[in-house]
């Protein structure tokens, strides 16, 4: 079966299994030389593809138990985060950590240890995971948590599926009073102003910035910084407060076909970015918005990956340590604007401290953006890799599709320890992806 990630690059032909029961899953794992689990295919590159055996968890998607006293949900790995919201928001519970799309599976969220707009305050997905059940190559399942089998737990969170197949997990949801968000948007004229806004608002529950990667000179790094809080009943007008979980369904649009290659270029991208900034600046200030628009604006455009055309696109996401963030971001922005490629969607976010063996975040700033795949952008991406390395940064494996093993090894000192654990526990031969082979993990 032909598989690719959300970025539709690279495209690989893989043997795919889609077990419908725990017993079938065990058979599939035991029968294969090596496997990787695949949830909803939202990793951008080749993280969830193993040409020998890719195991889709789409049918293992049952919610098994919920304890309302502590907000703990036990579920199978194929459950989508959006399903959890659909089932529990109306009962007053929301995800404790919500990544940029609700179409991510629970297993994928754990394997990539995803982060959200609250990372500066609450950390990565790991902080809401009570325990995880992981299946080894023989089909035996081990439960791990911060206290029980902590080595397995540490390496499974952020381990990109390379420690085994997640079969179940228990996560904590957060209580909320409504399905609405109080959102404040502030324009920042340049990178420095944007970072100042993040630093001035450490107590905001959520913070994120859209950043114009193509602006230059005194406007380099101009941004729209958005802060958010879950709306309390007292924040809402009376009629809304009476039905605080009734929000209209967001209208969705589907991109019906692949855009032609020329649709996205430096001119359209520059115009889009300038327009977006002007519009955002005019509309700045406080507003009440629903959870879906606040957390998952791109989900409203189904198949938005098609706007990059048939060849697909590549995401770049790095994090830079706090001390080097300004210099590093500045250098990255200069390189991006100079390369004159069409970069539409760029996001800047302040990370807080992070504990883990192999998860992506570290305290500092993360920059994420996507490019259509072509020779010029692949060259630019290599340059961005180098700048990130020069400033002590590292890369998000869930977004990566093309990094070299050398670059990755230079970016992350933890790789040696991770490799050693893979060898020592017998994971290396049994659990592998096209990405783990490319990066020699």
């Amino acid at each position, binding site marked *: 079966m032909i598989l690719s990630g959300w970025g539709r690059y690279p495209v690989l032909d893989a043997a795919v299994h*889609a077990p*419908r*029961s725990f017993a079938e899953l065990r058979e599939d794992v035991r029968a294969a030389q090596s496997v990787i689990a695949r949830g909803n295919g939202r990793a951008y590159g080749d993280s969830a593809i193993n040409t020998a055996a890719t195991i889709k968890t789409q*049918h293992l*998607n*049952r*919610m*098994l*138990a*919920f304890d309302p006293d502590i907000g703990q*949900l036990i579920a*199978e790995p194929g459950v989508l985060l959006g*399903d959890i919201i*659909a*089932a529990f928001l109306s009962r007053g519970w929301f995800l404790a950590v919500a990544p940029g799309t609700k179409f991510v599976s629970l297993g994928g969220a754990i394997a990539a240890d995803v982060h959200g707009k609250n990372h500066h305050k609450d950390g990565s997905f790991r902080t809401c995971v009570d325990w995880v059940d992981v299946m080894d190559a023989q089909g035996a399942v081990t439960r791990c948590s911060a206290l029980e089998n902590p080595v397995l737990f540490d390496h499974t969170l952020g381990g990109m599926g390379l420690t085994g197949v997640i079969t179940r997990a228990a996560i904590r949801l957060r209580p909320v009073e409504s399905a609405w968000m109080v959102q404040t948007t502030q324009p920042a004229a340049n990178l420095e102003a944007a970072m100042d806004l993040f630093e001035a608002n450490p107590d905001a529950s959520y913070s994120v910035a859209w950043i114009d990667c193509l602006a230059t000179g005194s406007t380099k790094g101009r941004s729209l910084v958005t802060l958010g809080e879950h709306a309390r009943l007292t924040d809402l007008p009376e009629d809304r407060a009476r039905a605080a979980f009734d929000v209209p369904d967001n209208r969705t649009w589907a991109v019906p076909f692949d855009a032609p290659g020329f649709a996205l270029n430096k001119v359209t991208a520059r115009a889009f970015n300038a327009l977006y900034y002007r519009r955002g600046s005019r509309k700045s200030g406080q507003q009440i918005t629903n959870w879906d628009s606040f957390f998952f604006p791109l989900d409203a455009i189904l198949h938005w990956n098609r706007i990059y055309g048939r060849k697909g696109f590549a995401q770049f996401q790095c994090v830079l340590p706090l001390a080097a963030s300004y210099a590093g971001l500045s250098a990255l922005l200069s390189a991006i604007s100079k390369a004159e490629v069409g970069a539409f969607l760029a996001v800047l976010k302040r990370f807080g401290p992070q504990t883990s063996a192999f998860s992506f975040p570290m305290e500092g700033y993360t920059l994420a953006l996507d490019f259509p795949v072509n020779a010029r952008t692949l060259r630019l991406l290599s340059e961005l890799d180098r700048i990130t390395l020069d400033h002590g940064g590292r890369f998000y494996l869930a977004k990566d599709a093309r990094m070299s093993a050398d670059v990755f090894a230079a970016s992350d000192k933890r790789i040696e320890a991770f490799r050693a654990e893979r060898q020592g526990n017998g994971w290396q031969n049994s659990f592998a992806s096209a990405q783990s082979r490319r990066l020699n993990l």
Partner: protein
Amino acid sequence: MTKSPVLILGARSDIGKATAHAFAALGHPVQLAARNADTLKADQSDMVLRHNVAVSLHEFDVLDLATHAAFVDGLPEMPDVAICVVGLMGEQSQNEQDLDAAVRVMRSNYEGPAHILAEFANRFEVRGSGTLVGVSSVAGERGRATNYVYGSAKAGFSAFLSGLRNRLAGKGVHVVTVLPGFVETKMTEGMDLPAPLTTTPDHVAQALVDAVERKVNIIYIKRTWRYIMMIIRAIPESIFKTRKI
């Protein structure tokens, strides 16, 4: 207002599960019937958590005709809608040589489903209300070399449903015939299906719910199938028999 219960016969199948979810999402309590019903516990808890409705499990074997009456009488509540999703395709090549296998396919797609729906039909008729749904197949519209064992059983089932509908039309009982074309399920896994003619269990379930609510008689899941089958039925036998279709 509490909604009326919906029974799914063959609840382990992909279409069965999707249908149960679709009715549960509308607030209907659901009864899941299958062999080894207790292996559906994860699905039961999932439906309860997602849709906040009552979900019960019931042991049911479509081939064990002698147990059907007791099965129906043993249900905690007589359902308002009884849906039979049971089906078995088998391998045509095997069905040609191994006649026991062929009989099993025939019984699983016709005799068993017709028998259990007949049990419900009689009770619904007495009650004067209810809906019976049979998931048959476009394969029953004309026998073809590639799957006529399965197709003939589905043809029998479709005719049975049509007759049942005719019989019960004035009795307050409605009968829906569902004719899916290609559906991405366990049954078709690994087959190379043409994307424009292939649908998903969720789409089948939505169409089925819609047909029950609007009392539609016969539904194809993708409209194209209606026209394809119209053409296939219209080809003269003298030509049809020499073609690979």
